[in-house]
């Protein structure tokens, strides 16, 4: 066991002596956490809308005012003909084009029915779908208002109204960062952990020092443990700094139990560091290790539910997320930090990372060969 301590001491010496590595370990994650949390924003606000009003009626202006009043849309430009609508769209100067056709109000009053035309830039399908929903909600609202005003006493056919009260729990102001910050934090720490452990052993292979270690009496599991501990400690420090950023900079609430989270985080770190170690033992060059880690991390990240909810994925993709440690971590962080879930609700997540931790480290030890085949 004492040999492990010597290995840990050596790793720390090497890490702290590397001028380039230190900022990557202790500054980069927080710059990225802050940067990414602002960047990774699917919040849809201030969409640019171009209006073609060919009606000039009072109602059409009321409608435009109503749209302008919402935080979702900014009236960016206006014109009188459809072709210029297409042109601004092509130049990306508008996300939506709303056309109010001639005789809009006249038809409304006379035929009780009239139509608006809406063009949406749908390259970003998500944004387009939400923009459509928001704009329709505004138009419907406007419609309802108009009815109330125009039919002063709804005596003949009373309008039955279902009054809806909306509540947004856990995040009343719909702050997108609450959703993204805890997830980005674990993802960043995962990246650093996997990359550094992934490069570590294979680097010793490339330099040649691994042979010197292999002729020693050190046990295989001591070797893996000695490599794991330094990065485990560093990852924990990163988690603490990151949590402070989340809590004090982004003011993300922390509803659940801190100790429950620490239990999970520690198991999780062992799991992902073991994964990095495993990658390192199967790689021949650092380039290879980096590539494999990058490939895995990007897939894990995209399929973690961090950016798009897992429930929306097709069945086969949801199945893949079951072997994705980042998915467990993202879910755990959201449940415990934001919703205050307790042990019974997250026990299955803790179980999953425990299995993962045992599997990845066993694989790493098993695959590390002191004697080449």
């Amino acid at each position, binding site marked *: 066991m004492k040999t492990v301590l010597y290995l840990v001491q050596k790793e720390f010496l090497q890490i702290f002596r590397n001028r380039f590595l230190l900022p990557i370990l202790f500054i980069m994650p927080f710059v990225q956490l802050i940067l990414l949390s602002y960047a990774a924003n699917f919040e849809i606000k201030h969409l640019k809308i171009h209006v073609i009003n060919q009606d000039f009626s009072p109602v059409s202006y009321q409608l435009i005012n109503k749209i302008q009043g919402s935080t979702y849309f900014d009236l960016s430009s206006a014109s009188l003909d459809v072709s210029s609508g297409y042109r601004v769209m092509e130049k990306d100067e508008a996300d939506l084009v709303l056309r109010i056709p001639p005789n809009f109000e006249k038809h409304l009053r006379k035929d009780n029915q009239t139509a608006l035309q809406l063009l949406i830039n749908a390259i970003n399908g998500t944004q387009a779908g939400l923009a459509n929903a928001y704009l329709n909600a505004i138009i419907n609202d406007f419609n309802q208002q108009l009815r109330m005003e125009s039919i002063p006493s709804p005596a003949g056919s009373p309008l039955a109204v279902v009054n809806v009260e909306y509540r947004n729990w856990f995040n009343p102001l719909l702050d997108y960062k609450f959703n993204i910050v805890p997830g980005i934090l674990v993802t960043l720490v995962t990246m650093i952990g996997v990359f550094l452990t992934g490069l570590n052993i294979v680097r010793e292979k490339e330099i040649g020092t691994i042979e010197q270690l292999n*002729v020693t009496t050190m046990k295989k599991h001591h070797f893996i443990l000695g490599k794991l501990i330094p990065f485990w400690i560093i990852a924990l420090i990163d988690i603490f700094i990151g949590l402070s950023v989340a809590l004090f900079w982004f003011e993300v609430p922390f509803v659940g139990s801190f100790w429950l989270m620490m239990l999970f985080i520690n198991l999780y770190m062992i799991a992902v560091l073991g994964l990095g170690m495993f990658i390192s033992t199967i790689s021949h060059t650092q380039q290879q290790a980096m590539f494999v880690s990058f490939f895995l991390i990007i897939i894990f990240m995209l399929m973690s539910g961090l950016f798009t909810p897992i429930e929306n994925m097709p069945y086969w993709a949801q199945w893949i997320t079951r072997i994705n440690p980042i998915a467990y971590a993202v879910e755990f962080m959201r449940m415990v930090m934001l919703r205050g879930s307790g042990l019974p609700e997250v026990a299955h997540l803790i179980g999953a990372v425990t299995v993962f931790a045992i599997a990845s480290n066993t694989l790493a030890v098993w695959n590390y060969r002191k004697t080449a085949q």
Partner: protein
Amino acid sequence: MNHEVAIRAEGLTRKFGAFTAVDHISFSVEKGEIFGFLGANGAGKTTAIKMLCGLLQPSGGKASVGGFDIFRQTGQLRRNIGYMSQRFSLYEDLSPYENLRFYGGIYGLPRREIKPKAEAVLKKLGLWEEKDQLVSALPLGWKQKLAFSVASFHEPAIVFLDEPTSGVDPVTRRQFWHMIYEAAHQGTTIFITTHYMEEAEYCKRVSIMVSGRIQALDTPGKLKEQYQVSSMDEVFLKLTR
């Protein structure tokens, strides 16, 4: 006691696919002997040495090092050997002292022994002034001497040296051989590969490997006599041509 066997190989073989790097080599090395393992580049010296150190699985044959089977008793084997590879695996971003302390610790030497011992080694090497500098800043010759000290820091019975002196000037090489002699004098068995033929003269016995096989094995004097030449260089040329 004098003729105890330190290393014994019988028909040791290693194949990489269709290529046979080491082809049924057999030899034995006595305890305390300096055994020169010669051969051209690519003759299979490093492959053989790696098998003897338990770094590479042999494809066939038998071998024991320090009385331990290299197939089955790798644990005990490792406790009794030291190995200095061609790339003398020092950590360039650690100081000489830290390198010694690390390897001492890995071999399980007691903490209170490591410090005085490492200091003694550094003083003897004349590296005391540089003990806190990074290894990367040291000249090649010093790195080699340090690497040898690292390989023998845990006082193994047998030390394997794979081309330890390549690339340095004759003076440094001579100093290096002094260290080897001193270790041998204390009873350590030295197994050394080299392609400097004048170094072969320093060995008690040498073997010459040509394309995976041992073509000659004897004392330098007897080999010269056998091939009726005046230097090991000529012996080597005669064998490899």
